[in-house]
């Protein structure tokens, strides 16, 4: 049904004057009921936080997204991205219907096809690969999404062990380190803490709910002390009581020295350690060598400050946290560094108490009972058992996986199914990912826009955007977890489908329909069955979020009977399992390599108005930073003859990019920084296409030895004025 | 950082409005100074009457053209808002333009007037001799032309938000500058007249202009002094012409070639009248040059003030 000119006009107003060509929306199935204003609660999808949204829909068009205060995690906030989310729906350059590649890969010639044709063709190509290389020849990769479960299940039902998810690009090492110590990954009660040390995390720009809001609240209103370690003067640093521009990769020395001070001065929580921890003696022995004076040389943080901070921290405990951080794809010893943090937190006893680390509370969702499939026959191509025996097998290890796929060992992987992920930008060493793409017989991507990776796919499945689809109901974990619903607020504007429909379309043609014999409604019915609500689905449709009453609860694990999910059942300061796997059972310091003469360490970090590589084509967001720059300290810039605004070439052993230099005092002279998500190759991403440079193109491949997590701060770049 | 919202069109408008006002004022003065029922400086009065309507009419058109919604300009005359210099100014401008037109009519030679009425098919009753009202029209012109000339300055000077402008000296400066440019145009007109150079009329204009330029100097100086002794924001805003982007235009072009040079020429021109008996030096080229420089100086003043003023603002 064509859209009336009146609505076109309104539509253009919504998208911002001139941002959208009027002719682009003359189609689609969406119905317009004039003069209607409705408020529909749903859930944001622009980043992992999944805040609760109330969409204001007028005359069938989304007018505004407002925050939903009922969600205690997102607590009535919606960030810049969440506010700009409605442009996903009305982006004239979005994916609108299924596409099959017509020319060579990357040439950009596409054929618009029916869903049937896209399914048939994909199934046929997947079957061909399966026939030749076995089901393990197909790789299924995805980044967290409510509907990811369907996609993963299709991969497994297909018979492939090669499901790879995003954690080893993101937070695998921190998760593994805390799991190995506490048997679980806790949350941090920043709202009630009196002392927070934040190192290698930037909570005031990398937004995480409720942590960002909690930290503002506590530091600004309750006068919680915030100590920040970061080679850059981030917004978090600017709001901290103390900021130390720590020498990159040496945080562990700082933590070990804190442990040294705390243990040698007997400031640890002796009762807690005795009751709940094991391996304290070995720890005490280990950290004897790590004096503050030694740490000063490593970290460039004055010994006196380390001593003072250690004392203040232990005095404030248990209302004190050394914040775990989120993106731990940083250094090759990241796991051990996070272990050191976990141990530091443990010895001062800030466990499961207000203002400390708190294990996440649970809300059990029901599960829809689908037919089980046989376990895959082949081992994983990334050989997790051999390489990373302690790591979470189901998520895989992305960089090792890429190496093995490229080597064709232990066996060939020749097809790639991708959901909501942009490996060309998310993985370091773009050229290598490109080679992986080139050696694939077949690639299909499920996305909402023509990402760089999608640009090289053979089949493109356009998923309906989050405002147009019903997703599986999810629990957002945390100290105070909630249940959230994502429901469509408008009908799909174009010929797109939600993930489950795409999975089912493929399953049917692959002969796997028996495993996906349900509707999203049935799935959700099953999920909410157990909730203590009379009409749970109706409730969620009306409120968007279900919050269990009572607020956060503390102390459930604080009884000597409690068994932690570790080998010893205790909090493992010393880990036998690590030792068995050939790793240091206690965090032993390994100094990082420094940049060679004339080179600089490339460090990464978020900006509050962009998500990863995926929102730079949103006009409302791109407005804030139309291209990325190389941030460099003036002293460093002078040493390489670069002035503010100069075009520079930034190169490493794996690639080079060009972008403009921006001189800033807010970074260490031995580091440089650039924002992720620019230098796009896909011309459909009109606004970010060829603007600035892509960090992925110059990041070198390296990973953490224990978890397999990518190590993205280990690249030393050369800078040359061009 | 404030942006430039009022650009060259507004500069032109302020200049042209002031120019008309100046021309009219001087011409009215010339009309008013009568000797034995005869206008003392008839040529000045006539030239002035012939020229005065057009700059202001053009300027008003430019102003309307500069509006975001030019077809709504009539709204200016639906409301009267005494607090708004622009509202007062619009009304002043309307009355003044009407007056200049009537005055033009009153000075138009009879044959021309009749021919015009016929050619433009104007109503017959317009073909009427108003020569008798010239003195009245001149008298009415004093408040209106001074009002218009002052208003172009008040428009800026009334803006508290821009420290560069916010002093009553701006209005006075604009007034004297407007009168001076009017003088300049009349000097130019007289000196371009091939037939004859009328020494007494020229001397009248020179004397007037010398006074006006001198007055301008005595306003610029207190303006700068005042500013320098004023609050920080004003001092900072003065930096725009004392070491900032407009320094060169202000000192060299405005103060130098726009005021000093023409002043020197004019003084030299009337020097003989002061000493020996000769009425003037009578250098046609120099007279024209001085006149052009005066007019350019007046334009630059508007330019500098409109632009620099918008860049000035209070901090914090």
């Amino acid at each position, binding site marked *: 049904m064509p859209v009336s000119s009146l609505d076109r006009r309104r539509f253009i*107003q919504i998208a*911002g*004057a*001139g*941002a959208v060509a009027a002719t682009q929306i003359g189609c689609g199935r969406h119905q317009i009921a004039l003069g209607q204003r409705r408020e529909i609660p749903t859930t944001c999808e622009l980043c992992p936080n999944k805040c609760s949204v109330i969409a204001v829909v007028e005359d069938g068009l989304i*007018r*505004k997204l*407002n*925050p939903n205060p009922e969600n205690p995690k997102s607590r*009535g*906030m*919606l*960030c*810049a991205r*969440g506010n700009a989310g409605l442009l996903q729906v009305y982006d004239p350059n979005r994916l609108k219907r299924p596409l099959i590649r017509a020319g060579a890969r990357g040439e950009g010639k596409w054929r618009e096809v029916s869903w049937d044709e896209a399914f048939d063709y994909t199934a046929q190509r997947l079957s061909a690969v399966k026939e030749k290389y076995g089901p393990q020849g197909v790789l299924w990769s995805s980044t967290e999404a409510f509907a990811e479960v369907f996609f993963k299940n299709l991969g497994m039902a297909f018979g492939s062990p090669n499901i790879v998810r995003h954690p080893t690009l993101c937070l695998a090492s921190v998760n593994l380190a805390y799991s190995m110590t506490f048997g679980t990954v806790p949350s941090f009660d920043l709202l009630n803490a009196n002392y927070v040390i934040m190192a290698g995390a930037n909570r*005031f*720009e990398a*937004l995480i709910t409720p942590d*960002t*809001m909690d930290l*503002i609240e506590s530091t*600004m209103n309750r006068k919680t002390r915030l100590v920040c370690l970061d080679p850059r*003067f981030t*917004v978090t*640093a*600017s*709001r901290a009581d103390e*900021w130390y*521009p720590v020498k990159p990769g040496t945080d562990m020395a700082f933590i070990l020295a804190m442990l040294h001070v705390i243990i040698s001065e007997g400031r640890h929580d002796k009762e807690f350690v005795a009751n709940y921890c094991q391996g304290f003696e070995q720890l005490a022995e280990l950290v004897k060598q790590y004096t503050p004076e030694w740490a000063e040389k490593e970290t460039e943080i004055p010994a006196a400050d380390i001593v003072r901070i250690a004392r203040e921290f232990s005095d404030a405990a248990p209302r004190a946290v050394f914040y775990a951080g989120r993106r731990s794809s940083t250094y090759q010893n990241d796991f051990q560094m996070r272990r050191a943090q976990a141990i530091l937190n443990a010895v001062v006893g800030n466990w499961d108490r207000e203002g400390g680390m708190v294990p996440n509370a649970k809300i059990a969702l029901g599960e829809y009972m689908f037919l089980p499939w046989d376990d895959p026959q082949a081992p994983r191509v990334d050989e997790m058992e051999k390489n990373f025996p302690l790591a979470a097998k189901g998520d895989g290890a992305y960089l090792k996986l890429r190496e093995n796929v490229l080597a064709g060992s232990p066996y060939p992987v020749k097809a790639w199914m991708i959901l909501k992920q942009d490996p060309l930008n998310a993985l370091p060493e773009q050229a290598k990912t490109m080679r992986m793409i080139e050696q694939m017989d077949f690639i299909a991507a499920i996305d909402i826009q023509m990402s760089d990776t999608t640009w090289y796919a053979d089949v493109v499945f356009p998923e309906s955007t989050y405002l147009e689809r019903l997703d599986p109901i999810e629990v957002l974990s945390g100290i105070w977890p909630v249940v959230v619903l994502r429901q469509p607020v408008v009908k799909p504007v174009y010929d797109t489908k939600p993930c489950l429909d795409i999975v089912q379309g493929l399953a049917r043609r692959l002969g796997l329909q028996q495993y996906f014999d349900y509707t999203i409604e049935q799935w959700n019915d099953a999920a909410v069955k157990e909730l203590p609500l009379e009409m749970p689905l109706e409730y969620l449709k009306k409120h968007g979020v279900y919050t269990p009453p009572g607020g956060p609860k503390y102390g459930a694990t604080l009884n000597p009977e409690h068994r932690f999910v570790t080998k010893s059942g205790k909090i493992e300061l010393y880990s036998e399992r690590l030792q068995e796997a050939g790793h240091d059972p206690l965090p032993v310091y390994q100094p990082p390599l420094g940049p060679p003469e004339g080179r600089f360490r490339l460090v990464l970090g978020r900006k*509050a108005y962009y998500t990863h590589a995926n929102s730079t084509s949103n*006009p*409302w*967001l791109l407005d*804030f930073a139309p291209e990325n720059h190389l941030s460099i300290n003036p*002293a460093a810039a002078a040493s390489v003859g670069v002035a503010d605004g100069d075009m520079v070439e930034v190169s490493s052993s794996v690639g080079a990019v060009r972008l403009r230099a921006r001189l800033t*005092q*807010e*970074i260490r002279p031995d580091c440089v920084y650039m924002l992720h998500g620019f230098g796009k190759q896909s011309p459909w991403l009109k606004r970010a296409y060829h603007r600035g440079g892509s960090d992925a193109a110059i990041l070198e491949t390296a990973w953490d030895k224990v978890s397999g997590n990518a190590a993205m701060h280990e690249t030393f770049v050369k800078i040359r004025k061009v | 950082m404030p*942006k430039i*919202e*009022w650009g060259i069109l507004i500069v032109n408008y302020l200049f042209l409005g002031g120019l008309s006002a100046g021309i009219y004022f001087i011409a009215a003065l010339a009309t008013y100074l009568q000797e034995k029922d005869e206008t003392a400086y008839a040529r000045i009065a006539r030239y002035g009457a012939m020229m005065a309507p057009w700059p202001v009419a053009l300027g008003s058109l430019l102003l309307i053209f500069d*509006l*975001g*919604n*030019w077809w*709504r300009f009539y709204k*200016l005359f639906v409301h009267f*808002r005494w*607090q*708004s*210099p*622009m*509202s007062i100014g619009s009304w002043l401008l309307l009355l003044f333009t009407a007056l200049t037109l009537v005055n033009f009519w009153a000075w138009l030679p009879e044959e021309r007037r009749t021919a015009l009425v016929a050619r433009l098919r104007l109503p017959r009753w317009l073909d009427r001799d108003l020569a008798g009202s010239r003195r009245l029209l001149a008298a009415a012109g004093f408040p209106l032309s001074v009002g218009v000339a002052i208003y172009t300055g008040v428009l800026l000077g*009334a*803006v*508290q*938000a821009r420290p560069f402008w916010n002093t009553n000296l701006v209005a006075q400066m604009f007034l004297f500058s407007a009168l001076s440019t009017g003088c300049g145009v009349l000097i130019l007109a007289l000196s371009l007249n091939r037939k004859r150079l009328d020494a007494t009329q020229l001397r009248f204009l020179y004397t007037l202009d010398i006074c006006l330029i001198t007055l301008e100097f005595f306003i610029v100086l207190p303006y700068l002094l005042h500013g320098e002794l004023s609050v920080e924001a004003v001092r900072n805003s003065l930096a725009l012409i004392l070491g900032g982007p407009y320094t060169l235009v202000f000192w060299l072009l405005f103060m130098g070639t726009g005021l000093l040079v023409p002043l020197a020429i004019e003084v030299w021109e009337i020097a003989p009248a002061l000493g020996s008996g000769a009425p003037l030096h009578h250098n046609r080229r120099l007279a024209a040059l001085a006149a052009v420089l005066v007019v350019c100086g007046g334009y630059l003043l508007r330019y500098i003030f409109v632009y620099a003023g918008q860049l000035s*603002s*209070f901090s*914090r």
Partner: protein
Amino acid sequence: MHDKRYALVIDSRKCINCKACVVACRAENQVPLGASRDWIGEEHRGTWPRLLAAFQPEQCHHCVNPSCVRVCPTGASYQRDDGVVLIKEEDCIGCRYCMIACPYNARFFREDKGVVEKCTFCAHRVDRGESPACVETCPSKVRVFGNLADPAGKLQQLLATRQFHVMKPQTGNDPQIYYLL
């Protein structure tokens, strides 16, 4: 004294320059790209490693003596009894005098409509009993919107317990955004 006087109290220290308020306003009020009704003033000072960064949310101050209203020749700019300064679009001739007269550069010109626009305190939302879009969406709740005329209201409470300043008080506009110190 009216029984309503809308105003903002802003705790700039809490601002993390996330720009949520800017996008929220753009969405709520269909502000075209290239202009904003609200913005974040930034100040970066110092040399490495002694640094300071401050962020200050800004928008129209809904002045008690609004110089924009005073200079408007058509009355398009006006002030409501509750203090909100608005622009009647249909009366605006686009002369931009008000922009020049605003000490806070709070106004901008809309090329597409030929009129001047600025923050309305989201009067349409406020009149429905909601809070302004920028106030509502902020993760830090930096802005507190309310009725200054209410002696028991949250604004008066904040101003009674905290020190504050207003921007550019010299202009005599009596701006109604109170920045907490």
